[in-house]
């Protein structure tokens, strides 16, 4: 029996992008459904009653929510192709640690840069750069966070890269100036079809952010 896979998604969500990348890495066919986040579908509300958020992966009718959980699920079910987590428990722990760090820092800090003004924005910018520098340090000289192979931490972080241009414009700064190796890593990742096919054009994200800022009256 063929697997039925559906992804409830939203085009600009870094979290949805992570699941797209994982599905393509594993060579899986799936149906993508774009949600209107201002008018959530009955299916979304039924499949994620707790958070009513995307992404939601629906595998043979059963929902899985929260992008790091979905990516690990995909990795465990389709374990014979392109493993995203390493086999060694200690390396797995390191991967989970850094994915957790990314989840706790980047989204909130990036968000503050485009939604806030003045001191709040400056503080967020400073903290974001500190976090990205720490991540760049963790990458070191490796081609990917996963070492020789693209892995779980790479999936978790690369989806923010299409938002970098929007952050930089709003905050008037350059990520590449302070984290050149990290930007080189994003370009390396974009050479993978799983990544390039899953991430929208940064200009599109930037225009979307400009629209939202106008709508919410942020300068």
């Amino acid at each position: 029996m063929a697997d039925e896979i559906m992804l409830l998604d939203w085009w600009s969500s870094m979290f949805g992008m992570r699941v797209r990348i994982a599905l393509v890495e594993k060579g899986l066919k799936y149906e993508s459904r774009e949600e209107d986040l201002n008018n959530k579908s009955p299916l979304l509300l039924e499949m994620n009653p707790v958070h009513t958020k995307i992404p939601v992966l629906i595998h043979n009718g059963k929902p899985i929510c929260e992008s790091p959980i979905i990516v690990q699920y995909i990795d465990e079910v389709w374990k014979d192709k392109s493993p995203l987590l390493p086999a060694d428990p200690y390396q797995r722990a390191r991967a989970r640690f850094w994915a957790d760090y990314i989840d706790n820092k980047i989204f909130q800090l990036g968000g503050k840069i485009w939604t806030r003004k003045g001191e709040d924005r400056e503080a967020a910018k400073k903290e974001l750069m500190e976090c990205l520098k720490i991540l760049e340090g963790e990458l070191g000289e490796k081609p990917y966070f996963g070492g020789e192979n693209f892995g779980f931490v790479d999936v978790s972080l690369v989806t923010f890269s299409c938002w970098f241009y929007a952050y930089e414009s709003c905050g008037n700064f350059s990520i590449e100036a302070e984290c050149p190796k990290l930007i080189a890593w994003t370009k390396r990742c974009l050479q993978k079809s799983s990544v390039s096919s899953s991430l929208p054009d940064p200009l599109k994200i930037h225009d979307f952010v400009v629209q939202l800022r106008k709508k919410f009256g942020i300068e």
Partner: protein
Amino acid sequence: MGEEVKLFRSWSSPFALRIVWALEIKGIEYEAVFEDLSNKSPLLLQYNPVHKKVPILVHNGRPIAESFVILEYIDETWKQVPLLPEDPYERAMARFWAKFCDDKVLTSIWSAFIKQGKEQEEALVAAAENLKFLEKEMKGKKFFGGERIGYVDIVLGWLANLVSIFEEIVGLKIVDERKFPLLYSWMQDFAEAPIIRDNCPPRDKMIVKFKALLDAAIASSSSSSK
């Protein structure tokens, strides 16, 4: 091969307690290193430079930080008495509920304890909404893990010993037995399980500590302008 397992903890951290419970349940021998969090040791800072927090598990000299990460590491390294289910879908569900417990339940109950006035009322409402989801999840089960304690039970375990302490200090009911009968009975079963009962910080010391935290929070909120 000689195993060296050390756990950096504080006497009261509920996050470190999760690791104590996991190690004890699996019968793993370890050395507990108690940290004074107001005066962190150089070793703690070396082992967890990013967050500078406990718990840290050090296994044969290699450190692992963040309680969820440590729990999964323990489960993958010592396979006796598994904490997470084998089936990938059930594992995903366990991870989902564990995250929900920390992101939503813990946050709302902590706010209900530490805040005052309108913020406290709102936190209590949020806590009740979150507890409803857990109550539903408990149907037909003794523990979240099924017949025996598992990953989600360990993550939520703070509820079993801290909530009554919070309720005593603020004089408010946070987990009402009538509204959440299944959760309430889980709290009793969990707290009475021998390994849990034998590995909990002393209640009177906890009351003193959390009362002091609350007093400090009240003092700082009334001295700042609103």
